[in-house]
């Protein structure tokens, strides 16, 4: 099946098995390796992408279901001002250790801040509840998102 979608702002298409996981299409057909496979079953969030601006797990989405969708991966998001704000804030708060989970958390933060530019602690924890991190213990990530929302004032 020929599947068309918008990937990181560009119109693209791929001729493939429509049941192939979006995760595998992004990594293999488009070389976007910022999208990572952790659990492969919707539990950990390392494969997170934005679909129409909202987080989704690419490991449990068949690419055929994403026809005509607007998809953003960390590679596309990296070019934005908002990414810079999150990057600086994560560095300041020590939100990154091994980094495997980081693209997922950054996109979850974007998805949250887009709806709520000044989220409280509870809203932040809820927004990242589908992302697992084995290194940081979450507090530093929550802190990083708080800092981004303060310092990135006006961006969201």
């Amino acid at each position, binding site marked *: 099946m020929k599947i068309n979608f918008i990937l990181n702002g560009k119109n693209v298409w791929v001729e493939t098995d429509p049941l192939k996981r979006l995760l595998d299409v992004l990594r293999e057909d488009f070389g976007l390796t910022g999208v990572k496979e952790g659990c492969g079953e919707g539990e950990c969030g390392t494969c997170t992408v934005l679909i129409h601006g*909202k987080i989704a*797990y690419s490991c449990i989405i068949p690419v055929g279901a994403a026809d005509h969708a607007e998809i953003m991966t960390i590679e596309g998001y990296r070019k934005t001002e908002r990414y810079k704000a999150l990057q600086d804030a994560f560095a300041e708060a020590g939100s990154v250790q091994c980094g495997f989970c980081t693209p997922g958390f950054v996109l979850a933060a974007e998805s949250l801040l887009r709806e709520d530019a000044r989220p409280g602690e509870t809203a932040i924890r*809820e927004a990242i509840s589908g992302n697992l991190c084995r290194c940081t213990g979450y507090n530093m990530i929550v802190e990083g998102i708080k800092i981004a929302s303060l310092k990135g004032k006006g961006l969201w």
Partner: protein
Amino acid sequence: MVRAYRPPDFQSALTIMRENRAIPLAGGTDLMVSRRRWSGLSPFFAKPVLFIGHLEEIKRVEIDITNIKIGSACSLASLLEHREIPEVLKIVISQMATPAIRNIGTLGGNICNASPAGDALPVLYAMDASVVLQRKAEIRTLPIEKFITGPGETVLKDDELLTSIIIPKKSYNVGFYRKVGTRQANSLSKLSFQGLARIEEGKISDIRISFGAVAMTVIRSREIEEILIEKSGKEIEKLIPEVSSLYSAVIKPIDDQRSNIRYRKTISLKLLRYFLRTVLISKIG
């Protein structure tokens, strides 16, 4: 062999169902996990797959004077954002899975999956929801408890699609929902309790009680609810032991290793008593 179809509209989807007896895939959050193979391989489906998650006809919420009609392919997240969706349903949905799953998973998928641990089911039973099923030649509407017949089992025919869920508009002034699971996010619930009631002039005028994930399907007993109708706070207090033992007789927990039988039953009955005594009676005053 054709592996998947992506119809342009709902009528074409019905035609494909008739001709191919395909497996409908709405969000795929259940199917992609249950049909998963090892990493890097597409999931395995014995029959062709029909994508339905993009079909506008089944992604709408319609409201009339008596009912709320929810399209089966509405994502769980879209319902949380919708102004007309009853708060009691939103409370349940907001505790399902995680934001990323709710953005993709649908209400129809949760119902058709018919898992004893399907979290949307107890509140839908309590609200007297019905489901609208459609195939090329027929449309039928069934109460949800007639639709689900056992764990993973429904009366859905192999060329039929669930098109919408109908919820009668009712106003409750007491709502109580508890989900007891192993982890806050993502855990398929071990058990859940839903109580809804309407109190008028110090008495119960309407009450619905349902238990999730304690038996093959959701437990709701209209006979036991009937006992509580028109009762005052004092009368309910006296009825608690009787009502509790009546429910104890109808709750037959399934043991699927997530939690043992006795634990499930004990907690369910505790939640029932908490609802009757602490939530209801204190509200009646």
